[in-house]
């Protein structure tokens, strides 16, 4: 959505941080590249030598250890069943989180204040508790309660609660990012606030949040690995098991790590491709700013993976901003959000609209200009 002027240029010239290197500079850069490459190569060789000939123990590179970690039996008996369990928990957790997120996200938008507060408290609580604690608690609780497959349900429920609360915030921000005209038009047509919310705003918000939900999928997939701590037989646990047969647990963990990496990497690519597809179906920006103005427990409502997105570089080699920086404390409802955003200067089309929240003065037009340049 951003202007692509910068990407028209290529390579180092896209940056305005340094002058275009001349012949001398380019030679220097080539030399430095070589030096950096050689240093990396030396480090790799040193690590490999250490693994090949450790002071104690055995050669970690020997084929004797790698073969059982790579042969077809290892895949059919351990990695693939483990991956299936991982995928199963991931898929179920994502479906559950979307359901949870819709219920509580809409709950935080309803006109009824009591429902808003309850939904808000649930979401804030689930976002603050570490997933591992949730998992351990549910696991032991389910086991005591006599539920079969206790570890499976514990993994799924813990992931649903945490990621569901993130999805709830995505729904809320998706609605908040809709142009105000959507709500105004539906109210003018005689719909009630709730009808407008459910029939006009939320459906568009869902489409807008889908790319962010796919990013969340990566988080879920990564977090299922915590399940191995509570004995869920996921990919990590199965690779441990395989490793306990031939004492090549390091090798099997490397294989598991590679599988996790590939799966997460593919999902990340999907999440980066989706926004452009989704934009056709919604008036809200598809994941331009997937954040509601602040939940009490969190500075910006973005998960770790969304933070570390490889997005298009800007001239300074930064990436497009995905967060509100200015907040005004807890804002559990979206009323006047659009105006707040406009006042806070996040309306890209209205750069002159920015107002200092403390002095209430427009910064560009006042003496604040000098201050802003510090």
């Amino acid at each position: 959505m951003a202007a692509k002027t910068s990407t028209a240029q290529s390579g180092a010239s896209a940056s305005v941080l340094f002058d275009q290197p001349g012949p001398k500079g380019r030679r220097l850069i080539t030399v430095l590249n070589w030096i950096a490459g050689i240093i990396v190569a030396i480090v790799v060789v040193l690590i490999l030598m250490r693994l090949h000939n450790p002071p104690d123990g055995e050669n970690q590179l020997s084929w004797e250890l790698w073969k059982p970690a790579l042969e077809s039996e290892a895949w059919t008996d351990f990695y693939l069943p483990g991956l299936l369990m991982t995928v199963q928990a991931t898929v179920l957790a994502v479906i559950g989180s979307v359901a949870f997120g819709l219920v509580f996200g809409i709950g935080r938008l309803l006109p009824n204040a009591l429902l808003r507060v309850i939904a808000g408290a649930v979401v804030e609580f689930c976002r603050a508790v570490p997933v591992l604690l949730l998992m351990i608690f549910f696991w032991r609780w389910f086991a005591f309660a006599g539920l079969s497959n206790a570890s499976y349900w514990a993994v799924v429920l813990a992931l649903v609660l945490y990621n569901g609360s993130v999805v709830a915030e995505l729904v809320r921000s998706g609605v908040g990012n809709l142009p105000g005209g959507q709500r105004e038009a539906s109210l003018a047509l005689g719909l009630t606030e709730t009808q407008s919310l459910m029939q006009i705003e939320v459906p568009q918000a869902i489409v807008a949040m889908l790319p962010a939900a796919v990013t969340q999928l990566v988080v879920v997939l990564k977090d299922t690995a915590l399940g191995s701590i509570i004995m869920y037989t996921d990919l990590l646990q199965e690779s441990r098991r395989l490793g306990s047969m031939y004492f090549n647990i390091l090798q099997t963990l490397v294989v598991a790590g590679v599988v996790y990496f590939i799966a997460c990497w593919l999902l990340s690519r999907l999440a980066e491709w989706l926004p452009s597809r989704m934009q056709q179906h919604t008036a809200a920006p598809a994941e331009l700013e997937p954040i509601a103005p602040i939940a009490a427990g969190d500075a910006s409502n973005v998960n770790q993976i969304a933070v570390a997105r490889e997005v298009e570089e800007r001239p300074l080699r930064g990436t497009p901003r995905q967060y509100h920086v200015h907040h005004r404390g807890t804002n559990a409802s979206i009323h006047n959000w659009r105006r707040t955003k406009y006042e806070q200067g996040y309306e890209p089309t209205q750069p002159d609209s920015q107002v200092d929240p403390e002095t209430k003065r427009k910064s560009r037009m006042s003496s604040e200009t000098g201050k802003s340049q510090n």
Partner: protein
Amino acid sequence: MMESFLMLFAQYDIPRAFLVNIELTLWSALFSMVLGTVLVMMRISPISSLRTVAGGYVEFFKNMPLTIIMVFMVLGAFGQLKLSFSDTFATNFFWLAVTGLSLYTAAFVCESLRSGINTVPLGQAEAARALGLGFMQSATEIILPQAFRGSVAPLGNTLIALLKNSTVAAAASVSTETSSLMSEMIEYHPDVIVSIFMIFAFGYVILIIPIGMLTTYLSNKLAVRR
């Protein structure tokens, strides 16, 4: 209900377990901040190999489960490469966990800073160049200070995630932190499992809400108004 809480607090040193997590978080925050800054400078530098290395680093850590990294810190870095911080096991595992958390979090710090860089107007860099500043000077004196102020919110978010992730240190044999203590308490007092969970859950809620509020305050306070 009240009695069981008192009994649990008397029998177990719960604040100390939280202290371990807080220490893990603070040290990792410090180191990941340093490493993340180095990474982001590599990413914006004119030397293409450094850019590739930093990009690969971020890509690697954001797609790798933290649990695996933690296990590798113990069995790989300590077991095979003999990376050791202390002969005392408890200290050693603590610092191995800090290393793992720092390496992991640095990738997210790098990306937070990168989005902060984007809040710096082009003119700032152009003016720096016009004044004859080289890359290092304009990066460290013009761009990064403003980028830090612009990325308080995502950095605060990363700090919150780090505090929650510090429970995964259990996978690196740190046995005094909260998730391990919670398991132990549930093991011996299964009848009050809900109370035990609530103690720890609200402990985290109490820790995290002030961080969120402080971050909100700071990001309003520090953002460069343009």
